[in-house]
């Protein structure tokens, strides 16, 4: 009996795996380009992750559903496969059936103003298209959508009896909050041990975190290289790949460290040769969100080709790279709490007060010699939408042009790539850029 017949909930997961295998083939064709060698490695890590989940289902081994900002190093240390319930929109939104699934979510009664990442994920759970884990770690931040998605999960008839735990997020970023959240994470780890039978060996966790620290350190080094003019890379390689390595597929593994070393090496060479993603870098952009994953190829190459506009930094590419102090258990939990709640990209901006919107803009504009700040205004980012005044004022103080677009990162019908291109062109012209 085929796995899919026994486990219909794997239908999308298996298709996604096939899609990535196809993408890997395509990338292999360009293997002489050093960046493509890294892309292949990224896809290898991703496919390994898909393989591990499918193997776990097939052979009745434990695995968990969780999130990048719920200490993925724990699962590495426990040798537990994990996947993100919001994986498709975040990691696989190039899949050809995305728009059909968005429509299906709307038909299900989820409307069209809830973040598409949340709508899709609710759809996958409700339509039995998400792998059923041994236990689930639910996410209650950074936005209103995340806890609501997990409320649906909690209530779903197939998920109802799966043991679940959620870390409660404090709203501030002070010592008291750190201790509270560290305690929540500690309880989460206990919960995983109890419900999967896997053991958390603190020595193993320490080793994993040391690898993870190395990865973050190398990521930071890489970012220093992106300060150069021209930037050694644009949107094509950078934050999404770094993020997926450090926070998702290779969290705290030696392979992850090697991947980052290679990235730094390639970027250094580009800097040395004065090479960037375009022959002439004309505009250095700070894109303050995720990339528009649902329609990346219809927009981002155009920015570079038409305007020489290089995405030097985005929301996922730069945050405080605080190393986790592994000298004591106490510090390990506090370090994990800090990294996952205070530092993690998107969480650091959206979860608490709006200060990080202003602080990140100020820091990145200065450090990366940014010519323009783009607030894409993803339709799900309601807290950010209510922060545009603060962002605009910050940019005004820095004398850097600011544009607010209004789009859906996953659904290109919300604002079409052409409409967005038009807005960008008008903005560049009005600001005398490019």
């Amino acid at each position, binding site marked *: 009996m085929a796995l899919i017949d026994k486990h219909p909930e794997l239908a999308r997961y298996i298709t996604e795996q096939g899609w990535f295998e196809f993408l890997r083939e395509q990338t292999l064709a360009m293997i002489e380009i050093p960046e493509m060698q890294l892309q292949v490695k990224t896809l290898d890590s991703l496919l390994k992750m898909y393989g591990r989940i499918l193997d776990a289902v097939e052979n009745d081994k434990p695995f968990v559903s969780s999130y990048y900002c719920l200490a993925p190093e724990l699962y590495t240390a426990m040798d537990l496969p994990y996947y993100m319930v919001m994986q498709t929109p975040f990691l696989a939104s190039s899949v050809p059936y995305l728009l059909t699934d968005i429509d299906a979510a709307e038909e299900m009664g989820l409307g069209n103003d809830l973040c598409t990442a949340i709508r899709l994920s609710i759809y996958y759970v409700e339509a039995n298209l998400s792998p059923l884990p041994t236990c689930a770690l639910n996410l209650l931040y950074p936005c209103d959508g995340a806890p609501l998605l997990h409320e649906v999960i909690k*209530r779903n008839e197939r998920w109802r009896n799966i043991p679940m735990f959620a870390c409660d997020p404090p709203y501030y970023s002070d010592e008291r909050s750190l201790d509270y959240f560290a305690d929540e994470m500690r309880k989460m780890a206990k919960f995983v041990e109890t419900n999967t039978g896997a053991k958390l060996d603190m020595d193993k966790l320490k080793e994993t975190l040391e690898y993870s620290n190395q990865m973050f350190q190398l990521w930071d080094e890489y970012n220093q290289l992106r300060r150069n003019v021209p930037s050694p890379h644009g949107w094509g390689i950078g934050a999404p790949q770094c993020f997926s390595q450090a926070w998702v597929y290779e969290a705290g593994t030696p392979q992850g460290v090697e991947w980052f070393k290679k990235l730094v090496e390639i970027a250094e060479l580009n800097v040395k040769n004065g090479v960037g993603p375009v022959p002439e870098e004309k505009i250095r952009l700070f894109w303050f969100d995720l990339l528009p994953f649902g329609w990346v190829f219809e927009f981002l190459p155009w920015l570079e080709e038409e305007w020489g506009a290089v995405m030097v930094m985005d929301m996922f590419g730069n945050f405080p790279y605080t190393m986790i102090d592994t000298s004591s258990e106490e510090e390990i939990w506090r370090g994990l709490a800090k990294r996952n709640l205070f530092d993690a990209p998107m969480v650091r901006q959206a979860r608490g*007060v709006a200060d990080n919107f202003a602080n990140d803009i100020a820091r990145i504009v200065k450090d990366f010699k940014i010519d323009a700040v783009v607030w894409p205004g993803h339709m799900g980012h309601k807290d950010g939408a209510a922060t545009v*005044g603060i962002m605009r004022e910050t940019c005004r103080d820095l004398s850097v042009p600011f544009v607010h677009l209004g789009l859906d990162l996953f659904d290109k019908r919300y604002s079409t790539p052409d409409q967005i291109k038009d807005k960008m062109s008008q903005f560049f012209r009005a600001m005398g850029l490019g």
Partner: protein
Amino acid sequence: METNLKSKAFQEFSNAAETLVNPVLQRWKDQGGKVVGYFCSTVPEEIITAAGLTPFRMRATGSTGTEESDAFYSSINCSFPRHCFNQVLTGDFKFLDGIVCVNSCDHVRRIYDNWKRFVPTDFIEMMSLPRKTGPDQVGWYTEELAMLKDKVGKHFGVEITDDRLWEAVKLHNETRRLQKKLYELRKQEKPPITGAETLAVMVAGTAMPKEQYNEKLRELLDELSGTEGPGGHRARLLIVGGILDDPAYIKVIEDQGGLVVTDSTCFGSRLMWVEVDENASDPISALAQYYLTDRPSCPRMYGEHDNRAQYVIDMCREFNCDGVIGERLIFCDSWLVEHYMLGQDLKAAGIPMLKLDREYLTSGIGQLRTRVQAFLETMGR
């Protein structure tokens, strides 16, 4: 549908719901009384009352546009905070002596950031409200409330003792009991008060000192007890949703023959169905326990959907409802997903549900009428 409520008490409530500063509140201010605004039903009014101040639940009554706040908010934000912050910018909230915010939703929590940065205010606080409702979170919220108590006390120069807090708890519980009595009257076959009128009474309760409110509410209850409304409605309805503070919205529904006899809304039964435990060991933890765990929750709180759905079903049975209207402000994620789940729960319980999206300022009345009429018809009414 109207009941011809003529009493002076009701008129005062009705006027209070139509404006921000009602005459009772104005008198309080004129006599040197202070008023502290707060967002969200999870902020304990009792602490504000215990400091000798009047708590004022934030709304945007009387707003006519969002021209000023458009520079701070976007078109994908809920219209309530957009109108409310517009009024902050135009000075309509100058009567407030302080603000207490909480991270209730993505839209409203940013009012704190914008207000703090752009509008000079002497006292503005943000509390960290947990998402979970377990004992650890009650512990966290107890600390939050203790800190709020200290800050309010320090800023307004009052020592908020336990005695003062217990007094406030008793006063607010009295309000809850009186309001519940009003709801009990609506269980009658011909309720003496409509849903729209009840909402006015409830809104007024968040905008005047509680002693005076309670007095007037007693008057109204005396007037109503033993009386009947005109009856003749086509169906009895429960309304469930968030910040519904405009009686005119409910009136449109009732004018179609759907009498709203109970609710689960921010200005409705969730405010008072349960009381704060007066026998707890200390008032601050009693308040934390109440606001985080004991009172009927809204979708802001995680892991509580089953209880919320049960609450709606129980209320429907208690008030003999024929159907449920789920209202939501456009762009509200919390209520969208809640209604999605609740629709399934109610279906399983055999209770019809109509989901309505709306803007904060009641508009699109024609469409609302048509939808309600169609709903009543599908129920065979």
